[in-house]
């Protein structure tokens, strides 16, 4: 075990500086010494997968890995962990590629409300990596550090036993660790190589425009590539591409509020999804603008988190008339909104682009002034479209017999 570095006194009303590696991302925190790791993860870094039940070590909901060993995040002051490597349930698997333990809990119905699940996953990960030969009879005692109110434990034991048997000594490492942006709910609470740019420009109204918008290294939260077929011809689309204000009006919910010069713009975007309403304030930089191609970077911040994106749009003529408008967007979500399902966020972005493409088409044909900017995109229409799509897919799968109960 690595020893932490000595640290001089911080008074009770001062902040302690802490460097941690969380799910592969280095973060720097500055917080009072009495802040526990569980609070640092949830409140300062937006990683709400680590649950908090009792806050004194009994329930096990807050279990995370500290330097590879499971530990109670509520019984550790973040200040004590300088230099440590933390893995939370967010690091265990990806939405599109679950860790075998996560997959097994689902398959065996080892979760009902799911409140204890992060604790059980991290605790059993520790168990199976350190004692790969563990026998089923020992599981109740070995997993006794985590409490579940719902399941009666039998299915949890089944889930862990299944993975123990199928992965003796071959349990995959956490599959979702890497560099990404982590920014909490309390503004500027965390910075790190991945999050510095976010922190410096996530102020409500950045006074100055930054030199550059730095995108975090690593995989984006969502990557979408969409092509829409427009009736307008490429020359008409080029007119819209050349007029940034017109283009902005085509973007659902977006509003250009200020031109900062040198192709920098300040703006607002509102998105409403059912009960969730987000209002992003941010800036955008057009890096490349021609008749058939626009490359831009944008970043915005909402009280619940932030988004950084790199968007490339290209327009190409289509045989038989019309234009193919293609968007390639890498979006990095931080904070609370990052907890949004990856696939739902992807669906919403896709629908936003489709709405945008329709507005561009209208603007290009001069048929009407695009109005997307004057009101938030119909929350209802966005969510509705998304849900309707999902229901359609579901019915299609049912009809084709692909979707079957395990």
């Amino acid at each position, binding site marked *: *075990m690595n020893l932490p570095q*000595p640290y001089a006194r911080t*008074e009770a009303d001062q902040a302690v500086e802490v460097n941690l590696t969380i799910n592969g991302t280095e973060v720097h925190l500055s917080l009072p010494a*009495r802040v*526990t790791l569980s609070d640092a993860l949830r409140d300062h870094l937006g990683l709400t997968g680590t649950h908090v039940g009792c806050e004194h*070590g009994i329930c096990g909901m807050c279990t995370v890995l500290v330097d590879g*060993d499971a530990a109670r995040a509520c019984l550790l*002051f973040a200040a*004590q962990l300088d230099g440590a490597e933390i893995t939370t349930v967010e690091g265990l698997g990806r939405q599109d590629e679950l860790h075998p333990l996560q997959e097994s809990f689902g398959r065996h119905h080892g979760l009902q409300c799911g409140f204890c699940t992060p604790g059980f996953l991290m605790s059993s990960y520790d168990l199976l990596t350190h004692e790969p030969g563990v026998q089923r009879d020992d599981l109740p005692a070995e997993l006794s550090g985590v409490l579940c109110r719902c399941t009666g434990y039998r299915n949890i034991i089944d889930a862990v036993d299944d993975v123990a048997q199928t992965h003796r000594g071959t349990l995959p490492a956490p599959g979702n660790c890497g560099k990404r942006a982590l920014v909490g709910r309390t503004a500027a609470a965390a910075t790190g190589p991945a999050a510095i740019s976010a922190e410096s420009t996530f102020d409500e109204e950045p006074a100055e425009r930054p030199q550059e918008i730095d995108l975090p290294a690593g995989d984006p939260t969502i990557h979408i590539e969409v092509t829409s077929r427009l009736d307008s011809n490429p020359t008409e689309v080029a007119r819209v591409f050349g007029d940034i204000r017109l283009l902005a009006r085509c973007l659902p919910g977006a509003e250009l509020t200020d031109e900062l010069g040198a192709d920098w713009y300040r703006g607002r975007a509102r998105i409403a999804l059912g009960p969730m309403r987000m209002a992003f304030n941010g800036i955008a930089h057009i890096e490349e603008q021609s008749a058939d191609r626009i490359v831009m970077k944008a970043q915005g911040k909402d009280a619940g988190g932030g988004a950084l994106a790199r968007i490339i749009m290209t327009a190409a003529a289509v045989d038989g008339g019309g234009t193919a408008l293609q968007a390639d967007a890498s979006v990095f979500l931080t904070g609370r909104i990052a907890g949004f399902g990856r696939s739902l966020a992807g669906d919403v972005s896709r629908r936003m682009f489709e709405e945008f493409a329709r507005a561009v088409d209208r603007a290009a044909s001069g048929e009407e002034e695009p109005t997307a900017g004057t009101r938030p995109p119909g929350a209802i229409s966005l969510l509705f479209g998304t849900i309707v799509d999902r229901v359609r897919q579901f019915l299609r799968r049912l009809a084709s017999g692909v979707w079957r109960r395990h």
Partner: protein
Amino acid sequence: MKAAPFAYVRPGTVADVVAELSRDGSKVIAGGQSLVPVLAMRLGRPTQLIDINAVPELGELSRDGGSLRVGAAVRQRQLQREEIAAAVPLARMALPWVGHREIRSRGTVCGSIAHADPSAELPAVAACLGATMVLRTGHGTRQVPAADFFTGALSTAIEPDELLSEVIFPVAKRGEGFGFGEFARRHGDFALAGVAVRVHTSEASVEARLTCFGVSDVPVTVDVSQQLRSALQRTGSDPSRADLLSALADHTPDVAGDVVDTVGDSHASPAYRRQLISALAAREVSRAYVSARLSESEECSR
């Protein structure tokens, strides 16, 4: 349930730790597994926490002749894992009973002994083996034997300005055998009653020590050599464990009557705890004796 604000310092040397400890209102934080709940419930409000985890010397786990020296920052799981600690089998037997793996990842051996919970396992191990606690201040070092160390529930001989810098456990000798058992309502909970046993056999004699915990405000150690010898008179010196267990069962109720000194609580009455001690003592003394006989015949000592 959040801790009240406190000043935080993480010194890099023992000298700096003890210098900081001389400030009023200071508390050592090792693993925090007992201290953090106390702070969260605001049962304690130290003005300063001294984190001892950055002192390399306190992280040492070493063998020194017949002793295993366990520094103040050595985690409980480290003692379970590292080969060198196998030389103290009683500690290895007790550790799986200390809370849960998540607690042992951070909890230290010395922290548990310093905290001195009457139901805790490691203080009982220290008492049974006659471990030595090394206490340091700015002006010197003193060594306190386990028999003088535990002074009451959650109370020890440690003065407010003293650091428990290490615990010295004697390494198991040839002819020694050990037993450890406890009863808790759920695995990982504090024990309603528990025992740690050390038996030493040689051609000349048989000796047995029984330390009971969870039944008084400190671990209670009694010499049960007489009871073991009487049982062996009936079974012969090479009994099966089952035979020795039933012979011992006649003798342990008296012992239990002497050591159980609680008024009882909602979980268990004193009478129930006596029954537990009696049953656990017979079981673990017989286990310890059989393993002592085995170790006697081993070629080399451990």
